[in-house]
């Protein structure tokens, strides 16, 4: 059974594309057939984060408009042959695709792939509507900031209204030193406010910048963020990589548990 996951956040710049790239690569590493779709029409990003920007011939809008077959537009990843990218169009705008067209496209991809991951644009306009129309479940990415959490709350409300099967949360860019001295909301704080299931916590890690510079997702490497993303992928597959003591434990012990399990 294939699953369609939308990665969304409301606010821009919180790490949707980085999360999509790492989750997709991580699932491919776990021997799943994965296709990533960049649904941000007009602002193409996922291709550069994946390091596949030089291989684009056709894009999402070409497929939807029938200028090419789906297979022609899919770019196979250079490291993992089971991982594919369907890039967005750079020269069109978000009205070029409708929710119905997106649903139809995803239905066809379901025959071929285990996981279809949709990188959602920021905002709650048509690009967002397109992405969520086709999705079975959602992963909401937020950072421990007031603005990002506010937008995440709004997004969670909209996802509920659209009756997605499941919504999970990733708290991104946590700075443990700041949480410790009380100058950043903790994971517990964010989860309490949003009251949604936590599927992962990713520390603010400079390795993310380095990996994006190189166009190679860091999932599964030795960095803290790499381990965090690897754990998220296992949780997506339904594996229990639990942080059971989440509510009562100190932040550090909890984070220790998250990372310990990936070894």
């Amino acid at each position, binding site marked *: 059974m294939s699953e369609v996951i939308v990665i969304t956040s409301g606010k821009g710049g919180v790490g949707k594309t980085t999360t999509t790239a790492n989750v997709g690569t991580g699932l491919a590493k776990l021997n799943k057939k994965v296709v990533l779709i960049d649904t941000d029409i007009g602002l193409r990003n996922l291709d550069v984060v994946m390091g596949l920007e030089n291989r684009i011939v056709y894009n999402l809008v070409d497929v939807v408009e029938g200028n090419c077959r789906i297979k022609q537009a899919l770019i196979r990843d250079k490291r993992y042959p089971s991982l594919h990218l369907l890039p967005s169009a750079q020269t069109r705008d978000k009205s070029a695709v409708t929710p119905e067209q997106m649903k139809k496209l995803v239905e066809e991809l379901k025959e071929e792939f285990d996981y279809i991951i949709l990188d959602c644009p920021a905002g709650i306009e048509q690009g967002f509507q397109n992405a969520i129309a086709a999705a079975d479940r959602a992963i909401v990415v937020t950072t421990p900031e007031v603005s990002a959490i506010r937008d995440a*709350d709004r997004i969670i409300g909209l996802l509920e209204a659209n009756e997605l099967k499941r919504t999970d949360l990733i708290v991104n860019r946590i700075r443990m030193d700041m949480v410790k001295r009380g*100058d950043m909301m903790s994971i517990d*704080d964010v989860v309490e406010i949003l009251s949604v299931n936590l599927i992962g916590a990713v520390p603010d890690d400079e390795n993310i910048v380095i990996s994006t510079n190189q166009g190679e997702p860091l999932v599964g490497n030795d960095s803290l963020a790499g381990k965090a993303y690897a754990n998220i992928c296992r949780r997506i597959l339904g594996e229990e990589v639990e942080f059971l003591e989440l509510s009562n434990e100190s932040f550090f012990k909890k984070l220790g548990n998250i990372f310990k399990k990936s070894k």
Partner: protein
Amino acid sequence: MSLLDLFKKKSSGDYAKDRLKLLLVSDRANCSPEIMEQIKNDIIKVISKYMEIDAEGLDIQITQTESESSNGSVPAIYANIPIKDLKNKSENK
């Protein structure tokens, strides 16, 4: 943050959390803080008929709660109303 509690100083993280909670009340209710204020005042008016309450300490929020009938969570109004004196009004009669 037990150490910070000792000095009774609120950390910026706590400020952020408090601000967010208030903000999300009006966001989720899809109504302005003014309307929330009116609801609050009306509640004070009604309850005050029967007992003396601490209007200053009254806390009203819109939160999520698990619904028994429909699956998933639904919004709920949660009001915490400190009572100053239960008997006061009835004795006056």
